[in-house]
């Protein structure tokens, strides 16, 4: 089966899966570390220039491209949701080592023009998938795949409170690849039982309830969850780029039956609150709603160096948030960032009211 590598929550996994290809979420490596093994060759077969560590380049966008260039997938699908990723995709196209589909996801979202562009891009993606050996799904087939993934997300969200932060984060990625529940960590393994509860609760009655928002967390970042839990906190809302915030809304059964593609577009493009949207008030409405519903004590904003979109929102988040905000910027240098980050998390939890 053809595999399609992708890394944007605005690409509906159902659309990929319904074409009979295997969606693989990018999860290759630590965006901040450059290994000798990563050394690559360029389009002329000469030692290639890795993008990671290049001044001005978002480490995440660079890591996606550096590893996608060596991936064995049939194609990679990236989106125009930020300029850094747009340029990274162009670099990959320039290198010509893996078919790269750059999906235009409009920044504006309140107009019919924007919605029609998104739909047209799904159609264009479909043509690529068919060219790669996939099959254009019938409405019924698409609707069935949508129901499967909807069910999978519902099941995952149903147990989210019983999963450790890192396990939930991993499952939120898995559910962007497959609707099969046996791919998830076992709740029994993960549930914060008395043994694995945070080592030192700072307050009686349970850990500090935290939300995390910001750019994507790769697997190498999951240590953040451990530190938070060890410091007496617990992430009750993972609103990072690849977390719960960017899951599509629940599909309407009626619309899925009537016009599944249109419903898919509405559930993804019409409702996912993200930082690149213009205007971006949906993001703040989401946070306001969820922070209050989940009784959050503190908010951690995690962003990459050179990520203008999240960086510019730091001051706004601090001003709007009903709870204290910790701004964690992840620089290129892993070691210093780890030490510094851990210390800052601990200090933040200590000062929470």
């Amino acid at each position: 089966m053809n595999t399609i590598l992708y890394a944007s929550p605005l690409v509906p996994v159902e659309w990929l899966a319904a074409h009979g290809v295997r969606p693989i979420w990018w999860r290759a490596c630590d965006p901040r570390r450059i290994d000798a093994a990563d050394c690559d060759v360029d389009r002329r077969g000469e030692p290639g220039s890795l993008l990671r560590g290049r001044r001005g380049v978002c480490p995440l966008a660079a890591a996606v491209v550096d590893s996608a260039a060596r991936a064995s997938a049939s194609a990679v699908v990236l989106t125009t949701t930020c300029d850094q990723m747009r340029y990274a995709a162009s670099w990959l196209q320039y290198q010509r080592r893996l078919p790269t589909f750059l999906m235009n996801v409009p920044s504006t979202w309140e107009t019919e023009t924007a919605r029609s562009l998104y739909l047209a891009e799904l159609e264009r993606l479909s043509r690529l998938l068919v060219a790669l050996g996939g099959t254009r799904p019938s409405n019924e087939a698409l609707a069935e795949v949508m129901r499967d993934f909807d069910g999978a997300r519902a099941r995952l969200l149903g147990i989210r409170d019983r999963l450790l932060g890192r396990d939930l984060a991993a499952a939120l990625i898995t559910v962007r690849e497959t609707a099969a529940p046996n791919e998830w960590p076992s709740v029994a393994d993960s549930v914060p039982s008395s043994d694995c509860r945070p080592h030192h609760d700072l307050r009686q009655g349970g850990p500090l309830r935290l939300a995390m928002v910001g750019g994507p967390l790769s697997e190498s970042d999951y240590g953040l969850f451990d530190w938070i839990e060890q410091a007496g906190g617990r992430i009750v809302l993972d609103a990072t780029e690849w977390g719960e915030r960017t899951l599509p809304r629940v599909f309407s059964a009626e619309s899925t039956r009537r016009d599944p593609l249109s419903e898919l577009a509405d559930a993804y493009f019409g409702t996912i609150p993200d930082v690149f949207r213009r205007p971006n008030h949906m993001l703040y409405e989401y946070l306001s709603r969820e922070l209050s519903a989940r009784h959050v004590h503190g908010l951690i904003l995690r962003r990459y160096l050179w990520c203008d979109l999240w960086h510019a929102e730091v001051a706004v988040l601090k001003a709007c948030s009903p709870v204290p905000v910790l701004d964690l910027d992840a620089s290129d240098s892993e070691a210093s960032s780890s030490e510094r980050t851990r210390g800052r998390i601990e200090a933040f939890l200590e000062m929470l009211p």
Partner: protein
Amino acid sequence: MNHPPRRISLEDWDQRYAELVDAGLHEPAYGGPLRRHAESGDRRLTRLQLDNSAAALQLWNFLLTEEQRLRQAREVGWQILGTVKDLGTIPVMAYALRRVVAFYPDGAWWLPCLMEDQTRVLQTADSLGIDDSFCPVRAMLGAFANQAHFPLPDLLTCSVGATCDDVSALAQRLERMGHPILWWEVPHRRQPEPGEPAIPLPGGFHAPACQVALVQAELTRVRDALQAWSGQPLGDRQLRAGIGAANRVRKLLGELRWLGYTSEPCPLPALEMLVAEMLAIHFCSDQPESIHVLEQLLAEVRARVTAGLGVLPKHAVRVFWVNPVADLRVMNLLEDVGGRICGTEYLFCHALDLIPEDLPPLEALARCALADPMVGPPQDRSQRICREIRRFGAQAVVISRIPGASHCGLEGLVIADMVRDRLGIPVIEIEVPPITDALEPSLRTRLEALIELQKR
């Protein structure tokens, strides 16, 4: 031309101005000695070498009085439109309206350079959490916040989609600060697929017909909003007139660039050529006057070319320059070390292309917006750069990185690779912050090395 063309300091300009006045210089209302701009804040002028012609005097005076012009427009009740990010599309529409002036708030980009550390715009941006990991356009946020520069526009438009993250993020901040924004979408320009209808764009690119139609729909939305806002019709007749006036500017610039970049010796310094090119974007808030200013400049250049005179020694090394410099002084520096500009891509070459006049106006403007080199992949931009290098006969390329710009981390790789691959000429990448004084020795060394390489 009693005085041979030369680059002179601001000090020399005091004397030169007095001589011009004695000789009966006729100046527009915004005229006067250049010294006054430096005294009222534009201190960078004291560090620049400027062309010594009356036409250049007028060009600088026109540029440096824009804020004044905007304030006067406000005083007499004209409506002010701020066109953020879009380089050369919405202003064409706006100037088709009466009693409306459009300007480019992102032009605050140059305030930290022009005013050196006198302006507080960067400190204000810092205080708002926008530090130097953003490109110098963060000065725009500071300028909106401290309100010490341009008057606040009555309406803001901002193009988003395939645009830089810097402006998109800052414009969103502006909206949160209470400045409503009319956002319009420009999609990433892609190659038409096999069998998909393709439309030629000014400047030589092609776009799928559906993308042109989409941008046209967005411009129709903007047009409707401008009509409602101004209370004036903005139909095809008005838009055609607006396009005609914009093309007048572009034609003047076309000839100016050709003469300026191909004549030997170099007839006009790089700095004045840069300022002239910038007029294409938004006409420095007065379209008819920008035409007049460019006509004077072109007349001066024609006269110099006819007389075989120039501002630099013959056979200066011919350099193609990519991206605008945050510090204008670097344009002087290139000439100081024996180079000259022969072709540019200052991020807005599409604003120099003629707008088709034989198409429905909004379709013509949609094609122009999609022709923006930054809207497509850097491969397209590199291709255009290669074409222009050949056209102007440049011998070397300088890619001037803009600190913090979301596109600069990567695009330079592609441009440099393609230029070397296709043309086999040397390319260097330098980074130019708003004030380069501390870096000048190293910048000078790098530029010298490039020039020396080509002189051999």
